């Protein structure tokens, strides 16, 4: 590892030696396995995996994961490297909400977490690297979660390059179009997802969904395998046109009100994880949120506990 000046506190919760954070995409590979992941903005190519890591990734991502093939060359390249367990601190996560540490720089983003160090670099194009001590083979091994956390961030930055955002939201398909429900934790995204699923609708994810511009000037929603409690991680889905972008609120009764373009942009900005705190890309993030909001139909959906949300959505046009 090469030394690189760390900001005060960066990685201190997770890393034994924050000052020795890798300065470039280099190190000892876990193995020679390579995989491609068909996620929005991809493919995402991962190289340097061990056999156990590859098996764990295949188990986690199912049909979204495959061997690389000709034509994947324009994908986002990521490399995995091995580091010693002693490079990481033991973390007591009881009663603690896990959040990665970020260090944003003009040409790179550094990330530290539980048994992970990662960086995203912009040279000719976006590329990424992950250093971990987890080989994916042992029972209780943290590799699947570590790799997914890493991918979440990489995809968020890749979509930003493509004019889109990863949006903290519940994504539900109804009549061939996707509704994105945005809201703070506790606003009811998972509850609404469960209700929708029970009523026969497809839930893309109750946690993170991809929102992208389409060629016709509209917006499309693409499924991400990053779910909370509801949503299928392992199966692919086609893109869906965006029906409505909805700020979700709790209410005494169901209601649907219009949301201004600025209100929609603010919601998207607040719900764009990882990139919305990047001080070096905030102009791009804000412009992207405004652009997407300008193309979206948006509303404020108040939801009661009495059901009937979809009747409300079909009955009123914001």
């Amino acid at each position, binding site marked *: 590892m090469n030394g690189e000046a760390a900001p005060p506190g960066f990685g201190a919760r997770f890393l034994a030696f924050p000052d020795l954070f890798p300065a470039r995409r280099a190190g000892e590979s876990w193995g020679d396995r390579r995989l491609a992941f068909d996620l929005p903005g991809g493919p995402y190519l991962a190289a340097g995996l061990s056999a156990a890591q590859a098996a764990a990734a295949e188990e986690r991502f199912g049909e979204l994961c495959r061997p690389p093939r000709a034509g994947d060359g324009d994908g986002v390249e990521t490399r995995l490297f091995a580091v010693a367990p002693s490079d990481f601190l033991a973390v007591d996560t009881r009663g603690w909400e896990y959040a990665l540490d970020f260090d944003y720089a003009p040409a790179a983003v550094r990330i530290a977490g539980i048994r992970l160090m990662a960086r995203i670099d912009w040279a000719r194009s976006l590329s990424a690297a992950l250093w971990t001590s987890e080989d994916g083979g042992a029972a209780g091994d943290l590799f699947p979660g570590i790799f997914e956390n890493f991918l979440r961030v990489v995809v968020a930055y890749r979509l930003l390059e493509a004019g889109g955002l990863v949006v903290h939201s519940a994504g539900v398909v109804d009549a061939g179009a996707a509704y994105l429900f945005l809201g703070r934790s506790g606003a009811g995204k998972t509850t609404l997802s469960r209700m929708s699923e029970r009523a026969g609708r497809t839930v893309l994810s109750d946690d993170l969904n991809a929102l992208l511009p389409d060629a016709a000037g509209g917006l499309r929603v693409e499924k991400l395998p990053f779910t909370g409690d509801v949503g299928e991680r392992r199966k692919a889905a086609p893109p869906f046109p965006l029906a409505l972008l909805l700020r979700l609120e709790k209410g005494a009764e169901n209601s649907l009100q219009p949301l201004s*373009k*600025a209100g929609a*942009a*603010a919601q998207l900005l607040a719900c764009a994880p990882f990139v919305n705190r990047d001080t070096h890309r*905030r102009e791009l993030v804000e412009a992207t949120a*405004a652009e997407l909001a*300008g193309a979206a139909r948006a509303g404020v959906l108040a939801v009661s506990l009495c059901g009937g949300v979809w009747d409300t959505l079909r009955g009123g046009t914001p």
Partner: protein
Amino acid sequence: MSAHEITGPGIDSTTRLRRQSDIRFRVVDGEAVVVRQGAAEVLVLNETASRLLELADGTSPLSALAAALQAEFEVAPEVLAADVVAGAGELVAAGLLEVVG
């Protein structure tokens, strides 16, 4: 009512205000999307508040801001002057503007 007789919470029409250093804003369809970076908070301001935020340069008193806005809003001057002071007070209370003098 003269401009000097109009007062808000700790400010009046002679007060000069500027944007807090940790805010960023962008006008979308007439309304401002404001990011308070220190608080990691995003707000939306209506059209009048958005214009106040744009005009608050730290050098012009609120009376000058009201005069500038007079051409944009069909409101009686004394009403607009009062609204500007009240609105500026709200923006100060929200941590978006700070008093220069």
